[in-house]
């Protein structure tokens, strides 16, 4: 069941989705929510009324986000506001936490990630993820990159070789490691390890790349390399990035979502909410919400 809903605003679309609860294709009118640049603004992913409980604790609620092709979307906000929680909903990594319960919906190209049509393994292959701390496997550089393709199919040696080279090149790491592919991945520097993890994610040819504070463990030079890399690949792989570094969000992202926490009526612990979601330019230049403004100024001032 596919509906064309051109000219509908996000909130309207959301309202309809709420009613139908079914698989839909959503699109976005180019109003204030449209992309900051002229790239395609096709919707790749969208969350609708997303909320996550850990046990009884409501960690984050009412998140309506749209991820667009060719763009980098940044999630910012104070610690504990649920950024990681949200980004982990986007490729069903939260399935791995037994207490986590996801409410609402996340659509990927019109398919509900949590619906019967979606398989967690497949979701994760399509929607790659890079973590805060570089987490190479205790294997060789080559085997790290080859791991994904191998579990997802039975590539021949030649295919694997080619794929490893292409992925490493894509992650701007090839030149540095091509002579020592058989060495342990732990022999790389932190920044190289993180690029290896990006190469590893790219090797399974994902459609989206999620990054949870990918530079927080890196020095400025390594960070700059990763940022360059993101800018380079974003046309092929839309990126969602969580960052604590507002300068980074301002530098690299096209859209920014600002999250904050608030304590609910009869809750004891604060719950994360999506305060504002707009083009990065708007969020940083003229935020509509005062909380956003305070946060931005407090941190950047």
């Amino acid at each position, binding site marked *: 069941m*596919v509906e*064309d*809903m*051109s*000219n509908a605003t996000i909130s309207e679309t959301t309202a309809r989705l709420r009613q139908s609860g079914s*698989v839909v*294709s*959503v*699109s*976005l*009118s*180019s109003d204030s929510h449209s992309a900051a640049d002229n790239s*395609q*603004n*096709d*919707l*790749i992913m969208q969350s609708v009324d997303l909320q996550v409980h850990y046990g009884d604790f409501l960690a984050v609620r009412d998140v309506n986000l749209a991820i667009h092709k060719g763009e980098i979307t940044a999630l910012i906000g104070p610690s504990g506001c649920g950024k990681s929680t949200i980004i982990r909903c986007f490729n069903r990594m939260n399935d791995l936490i037994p207490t986590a319960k996801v409410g609402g919906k996340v659509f*990927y*190209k*019109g*398919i509900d*990630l949590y619906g019967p*049509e*979606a*398989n967690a*393994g*497949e*979701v994760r292959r*399509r929607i790659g993820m890079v973590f805060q701390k570089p987490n190479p496997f205790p294997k060789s550089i080559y085997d790290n990159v080859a791991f994904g393709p191998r*579990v997802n*199919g*039975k590539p021949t040696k030649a295919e694997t070789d080619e794929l490893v080279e292409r992925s490493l090149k894509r992650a701007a790491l090839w030149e540095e490691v091509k002579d020592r592919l058989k060495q342990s991945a732990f022999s790389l520097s932190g920044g190289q390890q993180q690029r290896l993890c990006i190469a590893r994610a790219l090797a399974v040819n994902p459609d989206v790349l999620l990054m949870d504070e990918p530079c927080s463990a890196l020095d400025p030079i390594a960070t700059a390399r990763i940022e360059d890399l993101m800018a380079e690949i974003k046309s092929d792989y839309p990126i969602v990035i969580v960052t604590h570094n507002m300068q980074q969000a301002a530098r690299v992202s096209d859209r920014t979502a600002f999250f904050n926490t608030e304590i609910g009526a009869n809750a004891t612990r604060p719950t994360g909410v999506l305060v504002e979601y707009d083009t990065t330019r708007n969020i940083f230049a003229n935020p509509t919400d005062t909380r956003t403004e305070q946060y931005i100024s407090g941190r950047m001032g």
Partner: protein
Amino acid sequence: MSSVVSAQPVVADLHDTTSRARKGLDKLFLGGLWMFTLVAIITLVTLVGTTLLKGYSRLNWSLVANFPSPFPGDAGIQAAIFGSVWVVVTSGLISLFIAMSTAIYLEEFADQRSRLNKLITINIQTLAGVPSIVFGILGLAFIARGWLGWGFTVGTASAVLTMMVLPVMIVSAREALKAVPSSLREGAFALGATRWQTIVKQVLPSAIPGIATGSILGVSRALGESAPLILLGALAYVSSNPTGFASDYTVLPLVILKYTQEAQEEFQAVGAAAIIVLLMLLVALNMIAIIIRDKSRKSW
């Protein structure tokens, strides 16, 4: 400007594309894990089951109340129960004393980096890896015969079991002391308390539940241990309960071993019944450990 582009509808896009072979392997793997887990469970069930089947006919008061007898019908294990209690309690107390002293010295007094500290630590690790039968040899050469010449008595057995459970106890006592927050020590020191006052009045009370649980585990090892005592003459027909360190003795595991090797089939039932008694004692010990652990959690 309203350039609206619909995301292309790619239904079935996220369907499970895992190959059949891969799924098969997944199932096979899980099957393997299940199998081994089942093996463990089945082992426990058949072990207890076969023992119960064999031994339940002799599981009565006369088993516990009687002394050994050449006749399976009225053979009992009272001497072995008392022997076990004697040996386990004395070795438990001695090793508890040594373990606490060692742990307190290593954790609270000694410089963690000192040679002596390292030597003792490595030494404890080494002792922990020594097969128990080797302690039996030591006991045979130095304690039963040789230098001390205590003979095959409760004292000898206690000494040997002490050596055997000592590493376990020291490690658990050290862990328990390590788990005491240093803020507690600092708080006491800051009030002018001496080191010993700090240890006795603050550190030990907090560490006691941990030490107790560790010790009970050590003691239950001693209770079930048979190998070194084979060398120490505990196999004999002993019809009296020990009255002191110099008494003759026998213990439950060795009575079981003896009945198991007895030619008359009926003795197997006595052995099986004795096993059940031993297992019940062990379970009781572990329950005590659990209760201590839970109680200590609640109290503060």
